Structure formats: structure tokens, C-alpha cells
């Protein structure tokens, strides 16, 4: 290639331009990664969730519906970003967060001490006390203790399963516990009478029982210890700013009543949830 004065000037410009951009890239890589800044720059908050968790997250006629979608939309407005949800089977959600596939996890998830040690929870958004759902026409299950000696189902790897196990230990006869990859399989088995009850959080089974009152009923009172649902993010220095910003948005929604309105719409009642850091009951 013949280099005359014009093309060599062009070459010189291209080379120096390349060098400059490479230096800038290297400099930005070396700079401290701040998740809030990254999210605001991208204009999108990536949220991982399982869209089979009515009334918080579910799909109706191909569209995502539920408390999560609307709550995150409000938080997105406060932060000035769009929300992008990713649907995964539940056992894949928390590993995905750790692998940085998304910024936060919706769910929501019950706040437990073990999880608090590993993840950074946002402020709670609903009560999560574990209860039992039994067959609507099953008169043998009138109170939680009636599951003694029978077969009960719960979701694999869930905090609700742990609560069920702890409760079952205290009962006189052995309770057989079946674990399901997703709660809906448990509900299907309950309808098929393969199990006598399903253990899950009160909001979820209230919703299912309300939707299919001919099949299911809620067993009162809730047998679990008082617990709360919250969203969470990674527990590292980068994520602190993002969680703090989202918490700020939630507090605003506490104060102006938007959170209570959403709770009433999707969960049937307003719920009293902590507005500051608290110690989980387990």
C-alpha cells in the first residue's frame, strides 16, 4: 500500500484514535464498578424471578401479571429506569443472581437469617407466614396439627419446606413430606388427593384457594413463625448503592400509601411490614 501524505495522516489519526479509546476502556475497567451507576447508565434494571408464584408473579394470557410487575414498575419510575424481568425455574434464580445474570431477584423471598448472611435483602413488602392448604372437601384437615401421620407437599429448596419440616417434627405421628420442583405440581397432586396438604406462604395459598375455592381451602391458623417477603440483591460493596436506592423508593411508597394499595389489590389486605432492618424469626 502506497503511503502518500494524505493516507498516512489518516492512518496516523486512526491509530491515535484507537490508542485513545483503548486507554479510556482500560481506565473505565479499572474504575470501581458501582451497580447503581451501571443500572442508571444502561437505563434498565434486570430482575430475575419465577413467573409461577401467584399472586406475586404469574403469567396470564401471555402477559406477566402480579404484585412484582407493578411494584417494580413504581420503583423503576423512582429510579428513572426500565425494568426487564427474566423468568427462570426457582432453583436457578439465586445461582443466577450470584453469577451476575441479573441485578436483583424478585420472587419475593422469605427473609431468613441464613439468607440474610448470604444476600442483601431490600425492605420487606408482605407477610409470609407459612400456612397449609388442604382439599376443600377434606374434613379430616381442620387445623394444622391434623397433618400428623399424613403426606404433605412443599417446594424444593424453599424456606416454606424448612418451616414445614420443623413443624412436622413436633407432631405425634410421622409426616411424610414430598418435595416438588414447583408449587403448582404440589397443588395438582393435592387436587388428585395424592397428598393431603401443601405448605406455602399465606398470600400465595390464599390466592390459589380463592381462585379455585371448589378444590382448595386455607387451613387456619398459619403454623409458621411470623416472617416477611422481600426482594434481594447481591451482598457486595457494588450492590449497596443499588439496594439503598431501591429501599428509598420503597420507603416513599410506604409513606404515600402506594405499597398498601398494591398489597390490598394483590394480596387481599394491607400488611404491616418493617420499615427498617429487623432480625428474622428464623
Amino acid at each position, binding site marked *: 500500500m502506497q503511503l502518500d501524505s494524505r493516507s498516512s495522516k489518516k492512518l496516523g489519526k486512526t491509530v491515535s484514535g484507537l490508542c485513545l479509546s483503548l486507554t479510556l476502556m482500560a481506565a473505565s475497567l479499572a474504575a470501581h464498578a458501582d451497580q447503581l451507576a451501571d443500572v442508571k447508565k444502561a437505563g434498565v434494571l434486570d430482575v430475575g424471578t419465577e413467573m409461577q408464584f401467584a399472586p406475586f408473579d*404469574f403469567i396470564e*394470557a401471555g402477559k406477566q401479571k402480579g404484585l412484582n410487575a407493578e411494584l417494580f414498575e413504581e420503583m423503576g419510575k423512582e429510579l428513572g429506569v426500565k425494568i426487564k424481568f427474566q423468568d427462570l425455574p426457582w432453583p436457578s434464580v439465586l445461582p443466577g443472581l450470584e453469577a451476575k445474570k441479573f441485578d436483583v431477584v424478585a420472587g419475593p423471598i422469605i427473609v431468613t437469617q441464613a439468607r440474610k448472611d448470604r444476600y442483601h435483602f431490600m425492605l420487606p413488602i408482605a407477610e409470609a407466614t407459612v400456612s397449609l392448604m388442604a382439599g376443600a372437601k377434606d374434613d379430616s384437615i381442620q387445623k394444622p396439627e391434623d397433618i400428623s401421620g399424613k403426606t404433605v407437599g412443599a417446594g424444593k429448596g424453599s424456606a416454606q419446606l424448612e418451616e414445614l419440616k420443623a413443624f412436622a417434627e413436633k407432631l405425634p405421628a410421622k409426616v411424610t413430606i414430598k418435595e416438588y420442583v414447583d408449587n403448582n405440581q404440589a*397443588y395438582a397432586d393435592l387436587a388428585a388427593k395424592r397428598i393431603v396438604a401443601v405448605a406455602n406462604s399465606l398470600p400465595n395459598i390464599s390466592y390459589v384457594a380463592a381462585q379455585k375455592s371448589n378444590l382448595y381451602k386455607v387451613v387456619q391458623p398459619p403454623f409458621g413463625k411470623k416472617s416477611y417477603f422481600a426482594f434481594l440483591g447481591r451482598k457486595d460493596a457494588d450492590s449497596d448503592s443499588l439496594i439503598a436506592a431501591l429501599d428509598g423508593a420503597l420507603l416513599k411508597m410506604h409513606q404515600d400509601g402506594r405499597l398498601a394499595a398494591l398489597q390490598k389489590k394483590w394480596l387481599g389486605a394491607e400488611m404491616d411490614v418493617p420499615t427498617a432492618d429487623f432480625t428474622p424469626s428464623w
Partner: protein
Amino acid sequence: MFDGPLFLQNFPLLLSALLTTVEVSAAALFLGFFIGVLVASLRLSPTPALKRLGGAYIFVFRGIPLLVQLLFIYYFLPRIGLPNVSPMAAAVIGLALCCGAYIAEILRGGFMAIPHGQLEAAGLLGLSNAQMLVRIRVPQAVRLTLPGLINEMILLIKASSLVSVVGLADLTRTAQNMAASDYMFVQDYLMLAAFYCLINMPLAWCGGHLERRLKEQGA
């Protein structure tokens, strides 16, 4: 038991999810075929080191369940410094690597089934290795391996039902989400099964048709 309006509502949603499943399966099959040819050539090579290399690949990707492979590619590779892969990419790569191992063995079996006497005779007649490959080995291998390859294709489409663990909304995941909100489990899962048959039956028919055509053409 059967909800007509719900069926009509769910049908187009499953149809678009079907597209995702077909996309991911086709891409994985395409990539997997090339991997299979490569690994089969390694296994058929006279060099012991190459043979071992091919053998190692097949050992790993046939020995580990596909579900575990998908989890690895999606969740653990980013943690050891490899770039973030999109759900579609993770699904295609995972499926391709796995079916590549099986295709390699199918192809190897096909090539080994060709009577060695043919190649000896061809050598005596002065044909080069390349000519032998193109005119004698490949045409016969195609006929011999076609049933196995069609089988693998159908297995791949069914194996693609696992890709929801890497975040890809395929046919199975979509049907599960539907059943989760409308509680019509039997109807939704029957529709799901029907959709899989919808893809697999034409494929099996095409395979049979191809086999018949090759039989007519061949010796």
C-alpha cells in the same frame, strides 16, 4: 374438563413458544453436526493421541447429564472469568456440545460398518484417500447413519425441554407458566405433548422418506 375458550387463548402462545424450541433445536443440531463430524474424524484417525482426544470429549459429554451441562455453561463459566452468555447462546452451545458427542459415535459406527475390502480394492485401483472418502465412504455412511441421525434429532428436540434452567422460555416452560395461572393442568400439558408430537412426527416421516429415497438410489 375441557375449556374451549382457554384452548383458543393458549394455542397461539404455545405456537410462538414452539418457534423458540424449533430455533434452539435447529441451531444446536447444525452446530452439533459439525462437532460430531470433527470428533468422529478424531476417533477414526490413525494417530493414537487424536483418538484419545476424541474419546475424552465423548466420555465427558456423554457421561454428564445434559441438565448438569446446561447449568455449568450458564452459571459456573461466568464465575471463572468467561464472558456472560445469553440464554439462547447457552442453550444452543449446551445442546450442541452434548448431541455432538452422540452424533460422533453414530457417524463412527456408520464409517466402521463399511466393509474394509471395498477400501482395499479402491486403493488397488488407484483411488486417492480423498476420492475414497467422497465416492465410497460418505455415500454409504449417509445411508447407514440416517436412522441414527434422525433418532438423535428427535431426541434433541425433546432434550430442549430442559433449556428453561438457563432462562430460555421454550415450549415446556411456557406451558408450565400457563398451567400455573389457569390451573388447567391436564388440558395444558396435553396441548404441550401434542405440540411436541407436531414437530417430531413430520421429522420422523421425512427421515423415513429420505431412507426410502436413498435405498432406491443406492446399490
